[in-house]
Each structure stands twice: as C-alpha cells, then as structure tokens.
C-alpha cells in the first residue's frame, strides 16, 4: 500500500514505466465517462505485452490496445462501439485469428461489477441473483453457485477480481491522490480498491485545501494510490463532465478506422507512436475540435459544511 500522504506526482510515462509490467492484469475503468485513453496510449508506446485487460466495456480503448498487440486476454461484459457498431480489432482477434486467439472471459455487467466488489472487499466471491436460464455459466465455468445458509436457495457467484494495476481517471485530485469525481461513477471506486497498484490520472491537480472543502466529493482516497498524473484531456475521445464532451464523431470514425487493419496501423502510427504524449496528441487533433468539445459552464451551488 502506498504512503498516505506526500506528493506522488509524476509523468504518465514514469507512472506506466514504474507500475505497469508485462503480463499484468490491468483495469482501466470508466463507464463511458472518464476512460483514460492517455494511459492506454502510453502503454502502447512502451510496448507492454501479454496484458490481461479487464473492463465492463472494452470500448475503443481496449480495441486499440488489442490492435497494438498488448493483450493476451480480455475480461469483459459488453464489447461494442456504443451507439455505433463493432470493435473490429477485437472481433478480428476472435473471428479471424485461429492460431493465437485472444482469450476471452465473459460476464454480464452485473457479474463484472460484482467481481470488482469482491476484490475491493477482499472476499473470494460475491453472491448475486443472476444467470439462471442463461447460457453464460456454460460459457464461463468461473460463474458458480452457492447455497444460502438461511433459505437454502441457490445463488449465482462470481470470483473476486484483484488486478495488478488499475488506472483511474478523475476530474481532479490532490498530489497525494485523493480524487474527486462527479457525473457518472461507473465502477471506478471498486476497481481501485480491488487493485494492488493504482495510477490516478486527473484533469487537474488541486490544492489539498480545495479538496478538503468538499470531502463528500472524494471518490478515491490517496492511501490506495501509488502514482498521480496530471493529464488534461487525458480521457479524450471519452469525456470528463464539466471539462469536455464525448467526441462522438471519433467514436463513429473508429468504425471505419478499425475495420481496415492497415488504416488502423496508420492511425496508431500517427496518433499514438507518433506523439510523445497527450499534449502532442491534442495538438494534432487541432484547436477546433478542442474548442468544440470544451464544456460550457453549468456550476452547482455549494453546501454548508459548518457546524
């Protein structure tokens, strides 16, 4: 466990270099919101291999990691390009890659959420009412059952998921990694607590005093965080509520980019291998896109913490 306080600020390159290793079980969470593409791109640049990638929705972020050859296995519950179509690199690795197929371990959303809950709570399993009547347990023998000691009912179970490393994107954090999130929470808190190492990426680093002025907004405590990275626009083409909108156009473009392996390779060359980091990536996208996506202000009111 990390030291509870003191600065853990470092560059994305240092954070990935120090805390993500070949063969790791990795989770970069964020449900639509706060998906840390900046971390994934750095992982691609540092050419990590044989990763087990865990996420409810692999999304474009894992399609890119898979296309770049970083992945050995995928643990997931919904693999599509939301509102658009398919994840073609992922589909190719399953449908047209008989020699060295990507290993799949498949759940429903609830099942994977429950795996993170168990991991965070350091329990070996989590019980749930699910999967009866479905073929999912037949496809995944890790979905089992347990008998309730009170009612005798048979309930479904999933095993704990304890990744080696989690990347958590937040709107803002202090230098110790205490991080505040508003808008959709997804399963970020559970993924962070479940993981051995946590890289916290924030749009903005704020003074501890600002964070302490509204402690109920804190989702992730610094005591579980190993590295803090300040990376504005780090979630693009995903979004950060109050900072920038989702780049839906890019999600649509990905359909065509990812369909064609050569075009995908060219895209990786240009936007991932061809840039040193996030600021170069954003510069490449151009100021118009940035301006179009920048959030308009809609501030909430404060509340009284006095006594």
């Amino acid at each position, binding site marked *: 466990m990390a030291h509870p306080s003191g600065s853990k600020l470092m560059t994305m390159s240092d954070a990935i270099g120090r805390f993500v290793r070949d063969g790791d079980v990795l989770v970069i969470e964020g449900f*639509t919101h706060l998906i840390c593409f900046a971390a994934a791109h750095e992982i691609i640049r540092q050419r990590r291999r044989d990763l087990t990638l865990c996420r*409810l929705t692999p999304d474009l972020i894992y399609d890119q990691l898979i296309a770049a050859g970083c992945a050995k296995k995928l643990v997931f519950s*919904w*693999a599509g390009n939301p509102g658009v179509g398919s994840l073609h690199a992922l589909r190719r690795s*399953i449908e047209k890659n*008989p020699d060295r197929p990507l290993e799949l371990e498949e759940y*429903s*959303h609830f099942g994977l959420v429950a795996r993170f809950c168990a991991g965070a709570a350091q329990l070996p399993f989590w019980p*749930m009412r699910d999967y009866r009547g479905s073929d999912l347990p037949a496809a995944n023998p890790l979905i089992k059952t347990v008998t309730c000691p009170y009612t005798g009912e048979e309930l479904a179970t999933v095993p704990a998921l304890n990744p080696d490393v989690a990347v958590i994107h937040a709107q803002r954090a202090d230098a110790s990694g205490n991080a505040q999130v508003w808008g959709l929470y997804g399963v970020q808190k559970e993924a962070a607590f479940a993981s051995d190492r946590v890289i916290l990426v924030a749009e903005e680093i704020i003074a501890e005093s600002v964070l302490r002025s509204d402690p109920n907004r804190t989702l992730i405590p610094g005591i579980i965080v190993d590295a803090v990275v300040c990376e504005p626009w780090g979630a693009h083409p995903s979004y950060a509520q109050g900072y920038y*909108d989702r780049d839906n156009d890019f999600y649509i473009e990905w359909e065509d980019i990812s369909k064609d392996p050569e075009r995908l390779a060219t895209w990786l060359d240009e936007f991932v291998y061809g840039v040193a980091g996030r600021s170069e990536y954003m510069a490449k996208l151009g100021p118009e896109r940035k301006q179009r996506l920048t959030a308009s202000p809609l501030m909430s009111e404060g509340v009284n913490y006095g006594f």
Partner: protein
Amino acid sequence: MAVRAAHELRDGEVVFVGIGVPNLACNLARATHAPNLMLIYESGAVGAVPDRLPVSIGDPALVTGSLAVAPMADIFQYYLQGGRIQVGFLGGAQIDRYGNINSTVIGDYLHPKVRLPGSGGACEIAIHAQRVVVVAPLSPRSFPQAVDFITSPGLNGKYGTRESLGLPGAGPVRIVTDMGILAPSHGSGELELVGVYPGLDADAVRKKAGWPLAVASTLEPILPPTERELHLLRDVLDVDRLYIGKRGE
C-alpha cells in the same frame, strides 16, 4: 418501432433504458403521454432528462439535470436486483419462440461466425425487471426457432420455465417489431402475434418468423403514429436520424 415501444410505457413507471430505439421510445413517451416516466440508465443516471438524444448510454446529457447519480454497484444490486425497476427494454440479434434473447454470438460460442457485443446488463434486466419489452425488427433470421446462445432468459427454455428457475420478473411480455407485436400466449409462454400495424396482413407478418408463429384469436387494434409523434421523432428527438432511419419509422 419507437412509437409502438413508447406506447408500452405508462406514466410514472420506472424504466431501465437501453441505448438506441429504447432510448428514443422512452423520450418520446416522456414528451407525450408519460411526462413522469422515471428513466434509469445502467450507467448510473437516475431520473435523467437528456436535452439531446444520448448517443451513448453514458452521455453527459444524462447526468446534467438528473435526480441522482448512483454507482453501478448500486444500480445492479439495489435498483435492479432490489426489484425497483418496473420496465426493462432489450434488443437482440436473435429472439426465439419463447422469448430467449441472444446478443452474444452467431454460431458456436468458441468459434463464432459473428461475435456480438455480449450481455452488458441484458441478462440481469431479463431476470429482474418486473416486465421486459423487447424491440427488434421481424425477420426469419432474427426470430429463429431457438437462439444460438441464450444471453437473456425468456419465458421458457432448455433450463426450464421462469417459475421453475425462480426468476423474479415476468420476462419479455411484449415484443415490438417493425410489423407487429408479439406476446406470450397464456400457459406455454410461446410467443404469438397479438397485433399488426395498419395496412399489414397478419398472415403475411406471421410468415416472417422462423417458426410457425401463432396468431392470437383477437388482434389488438394498433393505430398509426400521430402527426405529433412523427414530428417529435423527426424534428425534435432524432433530428440527425441516428435511429429512425430515413423511412420515418
């Protein structure tokens, strides 16, 4: 389909909304006969009032102005498993004779012809929502005798009936297609055609299913979409024609 699906919703109900046509249907219902519809998205937005058509199930417009944001652990455990969801909307690549839904693979699971996105929240929505409305265009390929993979349990299947499995919700009680509406017949849970859209012939519609689709003894009357509904869909809710296509419905 969006208009028909909207008609399945009653004012004040708590609806678990999926993306695409279900989302369009919910927002159409909110704009017409069900202003107090409570939209809950699996992403965590509760009481969402999106001021643009959400492209994704986690669109920021679902959060802004919503009543609450819940962690996904709460959404699945306390809202869905907790029995708080009255209507769940599902789609799927295949729906079979007993309402089982496949959104996982076409072909064999380990060596699929087509790898579909998978369950997402569909399996647990099918189990826990008090009732499920399925939205899918009718064709023999999409409505086979039996699905290649049961992602979300229907009314009856190889593992048993809902009752024998102890599933809390009523399951897929309405299947809204582009030609008519299917619903389980009392007793067997087998789907039958209970209504056809204006201008269509029941006998022609029933042949679109991949099994000998029974027709209910009395067909429900189905009116055409009103001008206002079409206006809302075309000019307000889906201006970019993301879901309604060029045909209007």
